[in-house]
């Protein structure tokens, strides 16, 4: 028995060593994917929903480089908009959501199911610019917010295609397998929204939606000068909480506070929350801070034990040496290439250019061609006429 305990000691030690790491395994970056899926002017409110979330996460510190904003239509500069360059989410028009500084990553026809799934799973071509990619890792917390028109287990994109709850669940699973998130908060405002997260099966996801199956989500109010509804109820009350309770990045409000603030009589539908995928379930999830998803944290992990100044300087020196070495090598390589490419000019004048438009020459002999054609035709008809003459006497 003692021997057995002795054998177990390294394992116990390992667990003890690993334990602090596990405890401090917090996220080190925050990302937000904000998607509106509706085109056309009368869906103004869906873009306003997304833009108000965009302003909120930006206010709480997530930089533009870590926000992926998808807007399928242009509301701010729409000819129908009486307020050019602005989008409002409230009839009081106190806050211009479009503002002076906005970066839209995917817009117009780019907002498709394919692009959305490619974004989540990072299956993009090498030419894709960094601003259009979700460059997360296993220490990134992601807020995914979607709004649009949906139904039981689907959400319409631009009135032309749909994403199903299964597609979304598989995309999140692939993200988990690829270590693309640490924790994920999924929030959706659409009709029958809760069905959209019902198929999720990947860990570390908290999901919330605006309405149950067979329930519609409603808009909050309209602005008569804009001419259409400007925000949805669920998003309106989420924003209400975020604006009044989460005023600065040091806020200690928890997700429980946010979800408990939902008043079904005001929202006019039953918002749902799904905790079972989260480690520790509802209890652990409720303690998570709102800022863990809606704000930016600056948690820094230091790998080694308190490094000293001399070590740092030594590292710096080594780095400098390495850079010098690489530069030298590059220069040598360049010189070699230059030497090698000296006789090149002869070759390079032969740059292949075949993809050009060709010159259209005027046809000067068209009369001659017409004459030949007329002759040929009349010859044929002559033969035919002769043939018919031969037949007819019989």
């Amino acid at each position, binding site marked *: 028995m003692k021997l057995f305990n002795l054998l177990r000691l390294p394992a116990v030690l390992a667990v003890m060593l690993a334990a602090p790491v596990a405890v401090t395994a917090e996220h080190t970056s925050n990302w937000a994917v904000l998607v509106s899926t509706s*085109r*056309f002017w009368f869906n103004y409110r869906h873009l306003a929903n997304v833009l108000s979330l965009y302003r909120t996460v930006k206010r709480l510190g997530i930089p533009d480089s870590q926000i992926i904003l998808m807007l*399928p239509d*242009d509301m*701010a*500069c729409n000819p129908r908009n*009486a*307020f*050019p*360059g*602005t989008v409002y989410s409230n009839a009081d*028009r106190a806050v*211009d959501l*479009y*503002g*002076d*500084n*906005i*970066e*839209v*990553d995917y*817009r*117009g*026809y*780019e907002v498709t199911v394919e692009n959305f799934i490619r974004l989540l799973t990072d299956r993009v*071509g090498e*030419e*894709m*610019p*960094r*601003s*259009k990619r979700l460059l997360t890792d296993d220490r990134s917390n992601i807020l995914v917010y979607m709004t649009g028109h949906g139904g039981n287990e689907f959400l319409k994109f*631009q*009135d*032309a295609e749909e994403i199903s709850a299964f597609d979304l669940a598989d995309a999140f699973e692939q993200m988990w397998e690829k270590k693309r998130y640490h924790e994920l908060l999924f929030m959706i405002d659409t009709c029958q929204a809760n069905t959209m997260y019902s198929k999720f099966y990947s860990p570390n996801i908290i999901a919330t939606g605006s309405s149950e199956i067979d329930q519609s989500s409603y808009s909050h109010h309209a602005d008569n*000068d804009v001419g259409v509804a400007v925000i949805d109820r669920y998003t309106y009350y989420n924003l209400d909480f975020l604006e009044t309770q989460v005023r600065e990045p040091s806020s200690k409000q928890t997700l429980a506070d946010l979800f408990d603030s939902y008043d079904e009589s005001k929202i006019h539908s039953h918002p749902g929350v799904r905790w079972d995928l989260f480690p520790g379930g509802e209890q652990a999830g409720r303690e998570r801070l709102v800022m863990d998803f809606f704000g930016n944290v600056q948690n820094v992990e230091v790998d080694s034990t308190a490094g000293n100044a001399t070590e740092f300087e030594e590292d710096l020196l080594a780095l400098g040496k390495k850079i010098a070495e690489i530069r030298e090598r590059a220069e040598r390589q360049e010189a070699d290439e230059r030497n090698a490419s000296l006789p090149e*000019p002869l070759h*390079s*004048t032969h*740059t*292949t*250019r*075949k*993809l*050009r*438009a*060709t*010159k*259209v020459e005027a046809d000067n002999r068209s009369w001659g061609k017409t004459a030949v054609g007329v002759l040929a035709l009349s010859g044929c008809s002559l033969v035919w006429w002769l043939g018919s003459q031969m037949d007819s006497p019989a």
Partner: protein
Amino acid sequence: MSNFSASRIRLSLTSYLNVAAHQTQQHQQPQCAQRDRDINLALAAMRLFLSLLSLAGVLFTPTSASSDYHEQLNLRPLHPSLLLASFNFQSNTSLASFEQQNFRYFPRSLGQILQHANTRELHLRFSLGRWDAESWGARPWGGAREGGTGVELWAWVEAESDEEADGRWLTLTNALSGLFCASLNFIDSTRTIRPVMSFEPVGDHSNTTISDLHLLHGTLPREVVCTENLTPFLKLLPCKGKAGISSLLDGHKLFDASWQSMSIDVQPICEAGSNNCQLQITQTIDMVLDIQRSKRPRDNPIPRPVAESELKCDTSKEYHSHDTCFPLDAAAQEEEWSLAHIFGHSLKGTCPLADESTDPVCIDVPHARHVYASEGAHEHKDESGYKRCFSLAPDKEFEMILPEQEISEKAPLEQPLLYAERSFIGYGQESGGVQAILTNPSLTDSVDFVYMETLPWFMKLYLHTLKAKINGLDEDIIKEMYYRPALDRKRGTQLEVRAIIPANSTVVLTYDFEKAILRYTEYPPDANRGFDVAPAVITIGNIAIRTTSLLLPLPTPDFSMPYNVIILTSTVMALSFGFIFNLLVRRFVALDEADQWDVRAVRLKALAALKRLASRFGKGVKVEKKE
């Protein structure tokens, strides 16, 4: 003393098209004195053209300084009650330091993209609206800094083969799409062309590189231009829109304009006969603002009925009374406006990085017009009589007020070289035609131009129907023509026509086309809106004029059609299956034979046979029992 006054501008008028104004340095002033007379003569003819190109003069002059930055705002009132505001920002960096990634005033984000994509010269345009040449005259910069509706991009990419150039073009469009928040990545092979006669490199390229340069051109006529495109545009500027004239730029005003164009040009500029090259980036924003519209408060922009007491009535009418009002003719009255009215706020001092020799704000109004500038600014009146510039106090806000004034003198309008319009003709869902009307307003000079069309692949041009009529008569004015036919889903049509319009005449170019039917999944979500066709580009020397874009209605299916098809095919399937199944399992007989085949008869027979069988077995059983 203005830096743009005639005494310091040396003008070389190579042709009426080729205007290059060079600004000489201050210490060279005495040398210029004798040239003044010729200059004044030339200026009389070219004054208006120069009003905007004067800064371009600075642009085209290679300066010895390794790195500098200029900015200037030019305001020109247009009739009726409109204002053209041209913002120009320009910086230089030496090519050597650019290659060492020492960017200084050159925006790093753009510089690295250019290096990565081996792009030697770049022109990017974002435009909205229509320039009304009939009432507004010639375009700012002669049209050189403007693009077609939406986004237009053309670049000279260095590559050894066409394939390599295509690859670099792909890299470039995607990278720019990320930088400028526009769907530039949609410029694929179907929207890319390689112009032959239109577009010449503006920059100076050495002979060795020019053989490796590939010109690629792409347009996105559907692309919207909005604040998200202005944001990165401003971030490229050294003062980032925080100080200097760029502080006036506000998306809320810019995108309320009747016409606006943003441009970015990057080109190498070399001193003649030396290897001293500079890379130059020029950013311009031109917009035509409606003064009355701009004066509306931002929180209440919707026009509401004016109160009775505020109506401006013509009291000279005899029927004028408390309940009748004839509106006063405001044509002779110049509108009152100020920078704060037009741009929402006044100018926030000068950009400290800008070159101080350039006056930041200029306005093209007759000298008789009152212009009140804020304290600290100095006014420099131009000798032409229609232009004045202001130098500003560095740290003070600048405001300029033009009061209401009755003035008969107006700054003359420059006549454009060519009026161009283009529209669809024909009818029906399957084919149509295009008609371009080009008018040469000049009474003396003929115009040699290149007309370039880039059509989407689903608009199939019939080249043999291309006709040019001059003043209604068929005449052979087409000198040269380049054509590249479309390939379905692979590339669009490219057509370039070089022709000459004689003085004071109108040319009508027409051609027919056929519309292709797209596949179901190829339609965009708003297919019923129509498909945008890129504007035609008319190049006259180094001036470019663009027509408006066209909206092509294609035959669109009813998009619930697949469901109809599924329902219909299911019905047909069910019906045919039912018939065939019946044919297979039933026998059709005449009525008198029917008894024979009656089911009851068959059943009875079967029953009888069964009974017989049973009785036989029954007997057998009995026999067995007996035995």
